[in-house]
Protein backbone atom coordinates (compact mmCIF):
# COMPACT_ATOMS: atom_id res chain seq x y z
CA UNK A 1 0.00 0.00 0.00
CA UNK A 2 1.30 3.41 -0.97
CA UNK A 3 0.59 5.99 1.75
CA UNK A 4 -2.02 8.62 0.93
CA UNK A 5 0.40 11.51 1.20
CA UNK A 6 2.80 9.93 -1.28
CA UNK A 7 -0.04 9.45 -3.76
CA UNK A 8 -1.06 13.06 -3.41
CA UNK A 9 2.46 14.39 -3.84
CA UNK A 10 3.04 12.15 -6.86
CA UNK A 11 -0.18 13.41 -8.40
CA UNK A 12 0.71 17.10 -8.00
CA UNK A 13 4.27 16.60 -9.23
CA UNK A 14 2.89 14.82 -12.30
CA UNK A 15 0.32 17.58 -12.83
CA UNK A 16 2.97 20.29 -12.78
CA UNK A 17 5.26 18.25 -15.02
CA UNK A 18 2.48 17.81 -17.60
CA UNK A 19 1.64 21.50 -17.36
CA UNK A 20 5.29 22.44 -17.92
CA UNK A 21 5.54 20.02 -20.83
CA UNK A 22 2.42 21.43 -22.50
CA UNK A 23 3.71 24.98 -22.00
CA UNK A 24 7.08 24.04 -23.50
CA UNK A 25 5.49 22.26 -26.47
CA UNK A 26 4.39 25.71 -27.71
CA UNK A 27 1.06 24.33 -28.70
CA UNK A 28 -0.29 27.68 -27.53
CA UNK A 29 1.74 30.89 -27.36
CA UNK A 30 3.02 31.37 -23.83
CA UNK A 31 1.24 34.68 -23.35
CA UNK A 32 -1.96 32.59 -23.42
CA UNK A 33 -0.68 29.44 -21.73
CA UNK A 34 2.17 30.28 -19.35
CA UNK A 35 4.41 27.69 -17.72
CA UNK A 36 4.26 26.91 -13.98
CA UNK A 37 7.64 28.61 -13.66
CA UNK A 38 6.23 31.90 -15.03
CA UNK A 39 3.31 31.66 -12.62
CA UNK A 40 5.63 31.21 -9.64
CA UNK A 41 7.77 34.07 -10.94
CA UNK A 42 4.67 36.28 -10.99
CA UNK A 43 3.77 35.32 -7.43
CA UNK A 44 7.30 36.22 -6.34
CA UNK A 45 7.11 39.53 -8.17
CA UNK A 46 3.78 40.46 -6.58
CA UNK A 47 5.14 39.43 -3.19
CA UNK A 48 8.24 41.59 -3.64
CA UNK A 49 6.30 44.80 -4.36
CA UNK A 50 3.87 44.07 -1.54
CA UNK A 51 0.73 44.01 -3.69
CA UNK A 52 0.20 40.30 -3.00
CA UNK A 53 0.07 40.72 0.79
CA UNK A 54 -2.05 43.85 0.65
CA UNK A 55 -4.42 42.07 -1.72
CA UNK A 56 -4.67 39.05 0.60
CA UNK A 57 -5.06 41.25 3.66
CA UNK A 58 -7.85 43.27 2.07
CA UNK A 59 -9.73 40.21 0.84
CA UNK A 60 -9.40 38.39 4.16
CA UNK A 61 -10.56 41.44 6.11
CA UNK A 62 -13.68 41.67 3.94
CA UNK A 63 -14.20 37.92 4.19
CA UNK A 64 -13.99 37.82 7.96
CA UNK A 65 -16.19 40.91 8.43
CA UNK A 66 -18.80 39.63 6.01
CA UNK A 67 -18.70 36.16 7.51
CA UNK A 68 -19.11 37.38 11.09
CA UNK A 69 -22.16 39.42 10.11
CA UNK A 70 -23.60 36.43 8.27
CA UNK A 71 -22.88 34.01 11.13
CA UNK A 72 -24.48 36.21 13.75
CA UNK A 73 -27.40 37.31 11.57
CA UNK A 74 -27.99 33.79 10.29
CA UNK A 75 -27.99 32.35 13.80
CA UNK A 76 -30.58 34.85 15.07
CA UNK A 77 -32.78 34.54 12.00
CA UNK A 78 -32.50 30.74 12.08
CA UNK A 79 -33.60 30.56 15.72
CA UNK A 80 -36.60 32.76 15.03
CA UNK A 81 -37.53 30.71 12.01
CA UNK A 82 -37.40 27.48 13.98
CA UNK A 83 -39.20 28.72 17.09
CA UNK A 84 -41.78 31.20 15.79
CA UNK A 85 -44.21 29.63 13.42
CA UNK A 86 -45.34 32.81 11.70
CA UNK A 87 -41.72 33.79 10.94
CA UNK A 88 -41.10 30.39 9.36
CA UNK A 89 -44.25 30.61 7.29
CA UNK A 90 -43.53 34.12 6.00
CA UNK A 91 -39.84 35.03 6.11
CA UNK A 92 -38.90 31.36 5.77
CA UNK A 93 -40.16 31.16 2.21
CA UNK A 94 -38.36 34.41 1.34
CA UNK A 95 -35.10 33.06 2.76
CA UNK A 96 -35.33 30.01 0.52
CA UNK A 97 -35.92 32.30 -2.44
CA UNK A 98 -33.09 34.66 -1.57
CA UNK A 99 -30.70 31.78 -1.09
CA UNK A 100 -31.06 30.92 -4.75
CA UNK A 101 -29.65 34.33 -5.78
CA UNK A 102 -25.91 34.04 -6.48
CA UNK A 103 -24.06 36.57 -4.32
CA UNK A 104 -22.54 38.44 -7.30
CA UNK A 105 -26.10 39.27 -8.38
CA UNK A 106 -26.19 41.62 -5.37
CA UNK A 107 -23.23 43.60 -6.70
CA UNK A 108 -25.11 46.18 -8.79
CA UNK A 109 -27.34 46.97 -5.84
CA UNK A 110 -24.38 47.12 -3.47
CA UNK A 111 -22.54 49.55 -5.77
CA UNK A 112 -25.56 51.86 -5.86
CA UNK A 113 -26.23 51.63 -2.13
CA UNK A 114 -22.69 51.73 -0.78
CA UNK A 115 -20.59 53.08 -3.66
CA UNK A 116 -17.14 51.65 -4.33
CA UNK A 117 -16.37 50.95 -0.67
CA UNK A 118 -15.36 48.07 1.60
CA UNK A 119 -18.89 48.14 3.06
CA UNK A 120 -20.33 47.34 -0.38
CA UNK A 121 -18.16 44.26 -0.77
CA UNK A 122 -18.78 43.17 2.83
CA UNK A 123 -22.51 43.50 2.17
CA UNK A 124 -22.27 41.18 -0.84
CA UNK A 125 -20.17 38.72 1.17
CA UNK A 126 -22.53 38.70 4.14
CA UNK A 127 -25.71 38.41 2.12
CA UNK A 128 -24.24 35.54 0.11
CA UNK A 129 -23.48 33.60 3.28
CA UNK A 130 -26.27 34.50 5.69
CA UNK A 131 -29.03 32.30 4.27
CA UNK A 132 -26.96 29.12 4.38
CA UNK A 133 -26.37 29.73 8.10
CA UNK A 134 -30.06 30.59 8.62
CA UNK A 135 -31.38 27.46 6.96
CA UNK A 136 -28.93 25.13 8.70
CA UNK A 137 -29.55 26.67 12.11
CA UNK A 138 -33.28 26.49 11.66
CA UNK A 139 -33.29 22.85 10.60
CA UNK A 140 -30.87 22.01 13.40
CA UNK A 141 -33.26 23.44 15.98
CA UNK A 142 -36.28 21.80 14.41
CA UNK A 143 -34.49 18.48 14.71
CA UNK A 144 -33.93 18.78 18.46
CA UNK A 145 -35.70 16.08 20.39
CA UNK A 146 -38.89 17.82 21.67
CA UNK A 147 -38.50 16.05 25.04
CA UNK A 148 -35.40 18.12 25.75
CA UNK A 149 -37.34 21.30 25.21
CA UNK A 150 -40.24 20.14 27.40
CA UNK A 151 -37.82 19.09 30.12
CA UNK A 152 -36.08 22.45 30.02
CA UNK A 153 -39.44 24.19 30.27
CA UNK A 154 -40.49 22.06 33.24
CA UNK A 155 -37.27 22.98 34.96
CA UNK A 156 -38.23 26.61 34.48
CA UNK A 157 -35.86 27.68 31.70
CA UNK A 158 -36.71 31.15 30.46
CA UNK A 159 -36.27 32.35 26.86
CA UNK A 160 -32.63 33.33 27.19
CA UNK A 161 -31.57 30.11 28.93
CA UNK A 162 -33.49 28.15 26.39
CA UNK A 163 -31.59 29.72 23.49
CA UNK A 164 -28.13 29.84 25.00
CA UNK A 165 -28.11 26.63 27.03
CA UNK A 166 -30.32 24.38 24.98
CA UNK A 167 -31.15 25.38 21.42
CA UNK A 168 -27.71 26.47 20.24
CA UNK A 169 -25.75 23.64 21.92
CA UNK A 170 -28.22 20.99 20.77
CA UNK A 171 -28.28 22.28 17.23
CA UNK A 172 -24.54 22.96 17.15
CA UNK A 173 -23.53 20.27 14.65
CA UNK A 174 -26.01 21.80 12.18
CA UNK A 175 -24.89 25.33 13.00
CA UNK A 176 -21.27 24.38 12.33
CA UNK A 177 -22.08 22.90 8.94
CA UNK A 178 -24.08 26.07 8.25
CA UNK A 179 -20.98 28.12 9.10
CA UNK A 180 -18.87 25.91 6.88
CA UNK A 181 -21.23 26.31 3.97
CA UNK A 182 -21.63 30.01 4.68
CA UNK A 183 -17.87 30.44 4.72
CA UNK A 184 -17.58 28.80 1.30
CA UNK A 185 -20.27 31.10 -0.07
CA UNK A 186 -18.59 34.09 1.57
CA UNK A 187 -15.22 33.38 -0.04
CA UNK A 188 -16.83 33.07 -3.48
CA UNK A 189 -18.78 36.23 -2.75
CA UNK A 190 -15.69 38.27 -1.82
CA UNK A 191 -13.77 37.33 -4.95
CA UNK A 192 -16.80 37.76 -7.22
CA UNK A 193 -17.59 41.16 -5.74
CA UNK A 194 -13.97 42.31 -5.96
CA UNK A 195 -13.84 41.31 -9.60
CA UNK A 196 -16.89 43.42 -10.36
CA UNK A 197 -16.13 46.32 -8.02
CA UNK A 198 -12.48 46.25 -9.13
CA UNK A 199 -11.63 47.96 -5.87
CA UNK A 200 -8.55 46.42 -4.19
CA UNK A 201 -8.19 42.83 -2.97
CA UNK A 202 -7.36 39.62 -4.83
CA UNK A 203 -10.29 40.05 -7.21
CA UNK A 204 -8.81 43.39 -8.23
CA UNK A 205 -5.44 41.73 -8.91
CA UNK A 206 -7.25 39.21 -11.13
CA UNK A 207 -8.71 42.16 -13.03
CA UNK A 208 -5.28 43.74 -13.38
CA UNK A 209 -4.04 40.51 -14.95
CA UNK A 210 -6.92 40.53 -17.38
CA UNK A 211 -6.50 44.18 -18.38
CA UNK A 212 -2.78 43.74 -18.97
CA UNK A 213 -3.30 40.45 -20.84
CA UNK A 214 -1.10 38.87 -18.19
CA UNK A 215 -2.33 35.26 -18.01
CA UNK A 216 0.37 34.13 -15.58
CA UNK A 217 -0.75 36.72 -13.03
CA UNK A 218 -4.34 35.52 -13.41
CA UNK A 219 -3.36 31.89 -12.81
CA UNK A 220 -1.10 32.89 -9.89
CA UNK A 221 -3.98 34.68 -8.17
CA UNK A 222 -6.37 31.80 -8.87
CA UNK A 223 -3.96 29.37 -7.23
CA UNK A 224 -3.69 31.69 -4.25
CA UNK A 225 -7.49 31.91 -3.96
CA UNK A 226 -7.67 28.13 -4.04
CA UNK A 227 -4.88 27.86 -1.45
CA UNK A 228 -6.60 30.21 0.97
CA UNK A 229 -9.91 28.38 0.45
CA UNK A 230 -8.39 24.97 1.14
CA UNK A 231 -6.33 26.35 4.01
CA UNK A 232 -9.18 27.87 5.99
CA UNK A 233 -11.53 25.03 5.20
CA UNK A 234 -9.01 22.36 6.21
CA UNK A 235 -7.39 24.04 9.17
CA UNK A 236 -10.32 25.85 10.72
CA UNK A 237 -13.68 24.41 9.78
CA UNK A 238 -12.69 20.80 9.29
CA UNK A 239 -11.03 20.67 12.72
CA UNK A 240 -13.89 22.41 14.51
CA UNK A 241 -16.42 20.22 12.76
CA UNK A 242 -14.52 17.03 13.64
CA UNK A 243 -14.35 18.02 17.30
CA UNK A 244 -18.01 18.95 17.45
CA UNK A 245 -19.05 15.75 15.72
CA UNK A 246 -17.10 13.53 18.10
CA UNK A 247 -18.14 15.45 21.22
CA UNK A 248 -21.81 15.23 20.24
CA UNK A 249 -21.27 11.54 19.61
CA UNK A 250 -22.17 11.79 15.94
CA UNK A 251 -19.05 10.10 14.71
Amino acid sequence: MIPLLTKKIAFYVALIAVWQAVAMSELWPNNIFPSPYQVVEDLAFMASDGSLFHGMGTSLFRLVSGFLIAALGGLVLGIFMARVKIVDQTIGSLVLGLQSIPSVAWVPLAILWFGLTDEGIIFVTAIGAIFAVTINTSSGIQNINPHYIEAARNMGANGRDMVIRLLIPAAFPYVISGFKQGWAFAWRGVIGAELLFSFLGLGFLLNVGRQLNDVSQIIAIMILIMGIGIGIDGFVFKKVEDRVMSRWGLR
Partner: protein
Amino acid sequence: MACAGAVMVGLAVYATMLEDSNENRFRVAFFPNVAHAIPVIGMEMGSFERSIGEEVNLEVRLFDSGPQAIEALFSGSIDMAYVGPGPAINGFLKSTDGSVRIISGAASGGSSFVIHPDSQIAQASDLHNTRISAPQIGNSQDISLRHYLAQHNLVPAEKGGSVTVLNIANPDTYTLFVKGEIDAAWVPEPWATILVEELNGHRLFHEEELWEDGMFASVVLVARQQFVEENPETVSAWLKTHNSTAHWIRENPTEARELFNKYVESELGRAFPDGIIDIALQNIHFTTDTVSTSIDVFAERADALGYLGRNGYNLEGLYMISGSP
Protein backbone atom coordinates in the same frame (compact mmCIF):
# COMPACT_ATOMS: atom_id res chain seq x y z
CA MET B 1 -32.34 12.15 -32.84
CA ALA B 2 -34.29 14.34 -35.26
CA CYS B 3 -33.74 17.23 -32.94
CA ALA B 4 -29.99 16.63 -32.75
CA GLY B 5 -29.92 16.34 -36.54
CA ALA B 6 -31.64 19.69 -36.90
CA VAL B 7 -29.14 21.28 -34.56
CA MET B 8 -26.23 19.83 -36.56
CA VAL B 9 -27.67 21.12 -39.83
CA GLY B 10 -28.32 24.48 -38.20
CA LEU B 11 -24.75 24.69 -36.97
CA ALA B 12 -23.39 23.73 -40.38
CA VAL B 13 -25.50 26.41 -42.08
CA TYR B 14 -24.42 28.94 -39.49
CA ALA B 15 -20.76 28.02 -40.00
CA THR B 16 -21.02 28.51 -43.78
CA MET B 17 -22.74 31.85 -43.21
CA LEU B 18 -19.87 32.91 -40.99
CA GLU B 19 -17.36 31.88 -43.61
CA ASP B 20 -19.20 33.75 -46.36
CA SER B 21 -19.47 36.92 -44.37
CA ASN B 22 -15.76 36.75 -43.55
CA GLU B 23 -15.04 37.52 -47.19
CA ASN B 24 -14.06 41.14 -47.70
CA ARG B 25 -15.00 42.05 -44.20
CA PHE B 26 -13.23 44.98 -42.61
CA ARG B 27 -13.90 45.54 -38.92
CA VAL B 28 -12.75 48.73 -37.27
CA ALA B 29 -13.04 49.64 -33.59
CA PHE B 30 -12.96 53.05 -31.94
CA PHE B 31 -14.55 54.85 -28.98
CA PRO B 32 -17.29 57.48 -29.01
CA ASN B 33 -14.77 59.89 -27.43
CA VAL B 34 -13.67 63.26 -28.76
CA ALA B 35 -10.05 62.15 -29.23
CA HIS B 36 -11.47 59.55 -31.65
CA ALA B 37 -13.03 62.28 -33.79
CA ILE B 38 -11.20 61.11 -36.93
CA PRO B 39 -13.07 57.81 -37.26
CA VAL B 40 -16.27 59.22 -35.75
CA ILE B 41 -16.50 62.15 -38.15
CA GLY B 42 -15.15 60.18 -41.10
CA MET B 43 -17.89 57.59 -40.58
CA GLU B 44 -20.57 60.25 -40.20
CA MET B 45 -19.46 61.89 -43.46
CA GLY B 46 -19.42 58.49 -45.15
CA SER B 47 -15.94 59.20 -46.47
CA PHE B 48 -14.39 55.95 -45.19
CA GLU B 49 -17.06 53.85 -46.89
CA ARG B 50 -16.61 55.78 -50.14
CA SER B 51 -12.83 55.43 -50.15
CA ILE B 52 -12.61 51.72 -49.45
CA GLY B 53 -15.23 50.90 -52.08
CA GLU B 54 -18.43 48.91 -52.17
CA GLU B 55 -16.86 45.44 -52.36
CA VAL B 56 -15.59 45.72 -48.82
CA ASN B 57 -18.06 45.26 -45.97
CA LEU B 58 -17.11 47.85 -43.41
CA GLU B 59 -18.22 47.04 -39.87
CA VAL B 60 -17.81 49.39 -36.95
CA ARG B 61 -17.38 48.21 -33.34
CA LEU B 62 -17.70 50.79 -30.59
CA PHE B 63 -15.56 50.15 -27.51
CA ASP B 64 -15.08 51.94 -24.22
CA SER B 65 -11.55 50.90 -23.38
CA GLY B 66 -8.28 50.17 -25.14
CA PRO B 67 -7.41 46.91 -23.37
CA GLN B 68 -10.79 45.55 -24.47
CA ALA B 69 -10.09 46.56 -28.09
CA ILE B 70 -6.67 44.87 -27.91
CA GLU B 71 -8.31 41.66 -26.65
CA ALA B 72 -10.61 41.80 -29.67
CA LEU B 73 -7.62 42.26 -32.02
CA PHE B 74 -5.90 39.25 -30.43
CA SER B 75 -8.94 37.07 -30.85
CA GLY B 76 -9.28 38.16 -34.47
CA SER B 77 -12.73 39.65 -34.05
CA ILE B 78 -11.57 43.07 -35.30
CA ASP B 79 -8.92 44.10 -37.83
CA MET B 80 -8.03 47.62 -36.82
CA ALA B 81 -8.54 49.81 -33.79
CA TYR B 82 -8.06 53.35 -32.58
CA VAL B 83 -6.53 53.09 -29.09
CA GLY B 84 -4.31 55.02 -26.70
CA PRO B 85 -0.53 54.47 -26.64
CA GLY B 86 -0.69 52.35 -23.44
CA PRO B 87 -2.85 49.58 -24.91
CA ALA B 88 -1.04 49.90 -28.27
CA ILE B 89 2.35 49.20 -26.64
CA ASN B 90 0.93 46.41 -24.50
CA GLY B 91 -0.83 44.93 -27.52
CA PHE B 92 2.35 44.94 -29.62
CA LEU B 93 4.45 43.38 -26.87
CA LYS B 94 1.91 40.73 -25.88
CA SER B 95 0.88 39.75 -29.40
CA THR B 96 2.53 36.75 -31.03
CA ASP B 97 5.62 38.01 -32.86
CA GLY B 98 4.45 41.61 -32.59
CA SER B 99 1.53 41.03 -34.92
CA VAL B 100 -0.40 44.05 -33.60
CA ARG B 101 1.33 47.20 -34.85
CA ILE B 102 0.83 50.96 -35.06
CA ILE B 103 0.04 52.16 -38.57
CA SER B 104 -0.64 55.85 -37.88
CA GLY B 105 -1.11 58.53 -35.26
CA ALA B 106 -4.58 60.01 -34.70
CA ALA B 107 -4.55 62.55 -31.88
CA SER B 108 -2.30 64.32 -29.43
CA GLY B 109 -3.26 65.68 -26.02
CA GLY B 110 -6.73 65.83 -24.55
CA SER B 111 -6.68 64.54 -20.99
CA SER B 112 -6.82 66.50 -17.78
CA PHE B 113 -6.58 66.09 -14.04
CA VAL B 114 -9.85 67.40 -12.62
CA ILE B 115 -10.42 68.06 -8.92
CA HIS B 116 -13.79 67.69 -7.17
CA PRO B 117 -15.23 71.08 -6.07
CA ASP B 118 -15.42 69.95 -2.42
CA SER B 119 -11.81 68.81 -2.37
CA GLN B 120 -8.93 70.97 -1.15
CA ILE B 121 -6.35 69.49 -3.52
CA ALA B 122 -4.11 72.23 -4.92
CA GLN B 123 -0.90 70.30 -5.57
CA ALA B 124 0.46 66.76 -5.67
CA SER B 125 1.33 66.69 -1.96
CA ASP B 126 -2.37 67.13 -1.11
CA LEU B 127 -3.17 63.76 -2.66
CA HIS B 128 -2.51 61.69 0.48
CA ASN B 129 -5.62 59.76 1.57
CA THR B 130 -7.61 60.61 -1.52
CA ARG B 131 -9.61 58.58 -4.01
CA ILE B 132 -8.78 59.25 -7.65
CA SER B 133 -10.37 57.67 -10.67
CA ALA B 134 -8.85 56.83 -14.03
CA PRO B 135 -10.04 54.56 -16.84
CA GLN B 136 -8.93 50.92 -17.15
CA ILE B 137 -5.61 49.69 -15.81
CA GLY B 138 -2.91 49.95 -18.47
CA ASN B 139 -4.81 52.63 -20.34
CA SER B 140 -2.87 55.83 -21.12
CA GLN B 141 -4.52 58.03 -18.46
CA ASP B 142 -3.97 55.28 -15.89
CA ILE B 143 -0.26 55.15 -16.78
CA SER B 144 0.02 58.96 -16.60
CA LEU B 145 -1.78 59.14 -13.25
CA ARG B 146 0.25 56.36 -11.62
CA HIS B 147 3.47 57.81 -12.98
CA TYR B 148 2.49 61.21 -11.60
CA LEU B 149 1.83 59.64 -8.19
CA ALA B 150 5.16 57.81 -8.22
CA GLN B 151 6.96 61.01 -9.22
CA HIS B 152 5.59 62.64 -6.09
CA ASN B 153 6.41 59.67 -3.86
CA LEU B 154 2.78 58.66 -3.46
CA VAL B 155 1.97 54.96 -3.25
CA PRO B 156 -1.35 53.46 -4.40
CA ALA B 157 -3.48 51.58 -1.85
CA GLU B 158 -3.01 48.15 -3.41
CA LYS B 159 0.69 48.46 -2.56
CA GLY B 160 -0.08 49.67 0.94
CA GLY B 161 -0.03 53.40 0.19
CA SER B 162 -2.52 56.14 0.93
CA VAL B 163 -3.94 56.93 -2.52
CA THR B 164 -6.82 54.81 -3.76
CA VAL B 165 -6.87 54.63 -7.54
CA LEU B 166 -10.25 53.53 -8.86
CA ASN B 167 -10.06 52.15 -12.38
CA ILE B 168 -13.56 52.68 -13.68
CA ALA B 169 -15.31 53.56 -16.93
CA ASN B 170 -15.68 57.28 -17.69
CA PRO B 171 -19.47 57.41 -17.23
CA ASP B 172 -18.97 55.84 -13.77
CA THR B 173 -16.43 58.53 -12.94
CA TYR B 174 -19.14 61.06 -13.73
CA THR B 175 -21.56 59.32 -11.34
CA LEU B 176 -19.02 59.14 -8.52
CA PHE B 177 -18.13 62.80 -9.11
CA VAL B 178 -21.79 63.75 -8.75
CA LYS B 179 -22.08 61.76 -5.51
CA GLY B 180 -18.83 63.25 -4.20
CA GLU B 181 -17.26 59.82 -3.73
CA ILE B 182 -14.01 60.69 -5.49
CA ASP B 183 -11.62 63.57 -4.92
CA ALA B 184 -10.19 63.79 -8.41
CA ALA B 185 -10.18 62.15 -11.82
CA TRP B 186 -7.61 61.76 -14.59
CA VAL B 187 -9.82 61.50 -17.64
CA PRO B 188 -9.85 62.04 -21.42
CA GLU B 189 -12.08 64.46 -23.30
CA PRO B 190 -14.97 65.10 -23.38
CA TRP B 191 -15.25 63.78 -19.82
CA ALA B 192 -12.68 66.20 -18.41
CA THR B 193 -14.63 69.16 -19.79
CA ILE B 194 -17.94 67.67 -18.65
CA LEU B 195 -16.63 67.40 -15.07
CA VAL B 196 -15.47 71.02 -15.26
CA GLU B 197 -18.46 72.58 -16.99
CA GLU B 198 -21.35 70.54 -15.60
CA LEU B 199 -20.10 69.57 -12.16
CA ASN B 200 -17.90 72.56 -11.29
CA GLY B 201 -14.75 70.48 -11.18
CA HIS B 202 -11.47 72.33 -11.12
CA ARG B 203 -9.00 71.49 -13.91
CA LEU B 204 -5.71 71.32 -12.02
CA PHE B 205 -3.83 70.93 -15.30
CA HIS B 206 -4.06 69.68 -18.86
CA GLU B 207 -1.86 66.64 -19.24
CA GLU B 208 -0.11 68.28 -22.20
CA GLU B 209 1.37 70.82 -19.78
CA LEU B 210 3.45 67.98 -18.35
CA TRP B 211 4.95 67.08 -21.72
CA GLU B 212 7.74 68.61 -23.70
CA ASP B 213 6.35 70.79 -26.56
CA GLY B 214 2.88 70.12 -25.15
CA MET B 215 2.55 67.09 -27.42
CA PHE B 216 1.92 63.47 -26.50
CA ALA B 217 0.23 60.67 -28.38
CA SER B 218 -3.28 60.12 -27.07
CA VAL B 219 -4.76 58.04 -29.88
CA VAL B 220 -2.99 55.88 -32.45
CA LEU B 221 -4.27 53.53 -35.12
CA VAL B 222 -3.24 49.89 -34.65
CA ALA B 223 -3.92 46.94 -36.91
CA ARG B 224 -3.33 43.23 -37.21
CA GLN B 225 -0.25 42.82 -39.36
CA GLN B 226 -1.78 39.90 -41.24
CA PHE B 227 -4.79 41.97 -42.23
CA VAL B 228 -2.61 44.82 -43.50
CA GLU B 229 -0.51 42.44 -45.58
CA GLU B 230 -3.52 40.72 -47.08
CA ASN B 231 -5.53 43.90 -47.78
CA PRO B 232 -3.03 46.62 -48.70
CA GLU B 233 -5.50 48.59 -50.88
CA THR B 234 -8.20 48.72 -48.24
CA VAL B 235 -5.73 49.83 -45.59
CA SER B 236 -4.14 52.54 -47.72
CA ALA B 237 -7.58 53.83 -48.74
CA TRP B 238 -8.52 54.01 -45.07
CA LEU B 239 -5.29 55.82 -44.20
CA LYS B 240 -5.79 58.36 -47.00
CA THR B 241 -9.22 59.28 -45.65
CA HIS B 242 -7.85 59.18 -42.11
CA ASN B 243 -5.26 61.84 -43.10
CA SER B 244 -7.69 64.06 -44.95
CA THR B 245 -10.25 63.83 -42.13
CA ALA B 246 -7.61 64.92 -39.57
CA HIS B 247 -6.88 67.94 -41.74
CA TRP B 248 -10.58 68.69 -42.24
CA ILE B 249 -11.30 68.62 -38.49
CA ARG B 250 -8.51 71.11 -37.82
CA GLU B 251 -9.94 73.45 -40.46
CA ASN B 252 -13.65 73.11 -39.58
CA PRO B 253 -14.13 72.84 -35.81
CA THR B 254 -17.79 73.91 -35.79
CA GLU B 255 -18.87 71.48 -38.49
CA ALA B 256 -16.72 68.85 -36.81
CA ARG B 257 -18.67 69.31 -33.59
CA GLU B 258 -21.99 68.99 -35.40
CA LEU B 259 -20.97 65.80 -37.18
CA PHE B 260 -19.43 64.34 -34.03
CA ASN B 261 -22.61 64.87 -32.06
CA LYS B 262 -24.80 63.58 -34.88
CA TYR B 263 -22.86 60.33 -34.91
CA VAL B 264 -22.84 59.96 -31.14
CA GLU B 265 -26.56 60.64 -30.98
CA SER B 266 -27.38 58.06 -33.62
CA GLU B 267 -25.14 55.42 -32.00
CA LEU B 268 -25.63 56.08 -28.29
CA GLY B 269 -29.00 57.80 -28.39
CA ARG B 270 -27.74 60.95 -26.69
CA ALA B 271 -25.40 63.72 -27.86
CA PHE B 272 -23.04 65.75 -25.69
CA PRO B 273 -23.84 69.44 -25.17
CA ASP B 274 -22.38 71.55 -28.01
CA GLY B 275 -20.40 73.79 -25.66
CA ILE B 276 -18.64 70.77 -24.12
CA ILE B 277 -17.60 69.35 -27.46
CA ASP B 278 -16.35 72.76 -28.65
CA ILE B 279 -14.00 73.03 -25.67
CA ALA B 280 -12.98 69.37 -25.86
CA LEU B 281 -12.11 69.68 -29.56
CA GLN B 282 -9.89 72.68 -28.80
CA ASN B 283 -8.01 70.63 -26.22
CA ILE B 284 -7.02 67.95 -28.71
CA HIS B 285 -4.65 68.22 -31.63
CA PHE B 286 -5.69 65.93 -34.49
CA THR B 287 -2.58 64.72 -36.22
CA THR B 288 -1.35 61.65 -38.04
CA ASP B 289 2.00 62.09 -36.31
CA THR B 290 2.47 59.25 -33.81
CA VAL B 291 4.57 61.55 -31.56
CA SER B 292 6.85 58.54 -31.19
CA THR B 293 9.07 60.12 -28.53
CA SER B 294 6.05 60.23 -26.23
CA ILE B 295 5.28 56.59 -27.01
CA ASP B 296 8.80 55.68 -25.88
CA VAL B 297 8.16 57.57 -22.65
CA PHE B 298 4.80 55.81 -22.13
CA ALA B 299 6.58 52.47 -22.58
CA GLU B 300 9.22 53.39 -19.98
CA ARG B 301 6.53 54.44 -17.52
CA ALA B 302 4.38 51.38 -18.14
CA ASP B 303 7.44 49.19 -17.62
CA ALA B 304 8.27 50.94 -14.36
CA LEU B 305 4.70 50.21 -13.22
CA GLY B 306 5.21 46.51 -13.99
CA TYR B 307 2.71 46.58 -16.87
CA LEU B 308 5.02 45.17 -19.53
CA GLY B 309 5.95 41.85 -18.01
CA ARG B 310 9.03 40.97 -15.99
CA ASN B 311 11.58 40.48 -18.71
CA GLY B 312 12.14 43.92 -20.18
CA TYR B 313 10.68 45.03 -23.47
CA ASN B 314 11.70 45.86 -27.00
CA LEU B 315 9.69 48.24 -29.15
CA GLU B 316 11.52 47.37 -32.37
CA GLY B 317 8.96 46.81 -35.10
CA LEU B 318 6.17 48.66 -33.27
CA TYR B 319 5.47 50.85 -36.28
CA MET B 320 4.32 49.70 -39.67
CA ILE B 321 3.93 52.96 -41.51
CA SER B 322 3.50 53.73 -45.25
CA GLY B 323 5.03 50.67 -46.85
CA SER B 324 7.95 50.30 -44.44
CA PRO B 325 8.26 46.64 -43.38
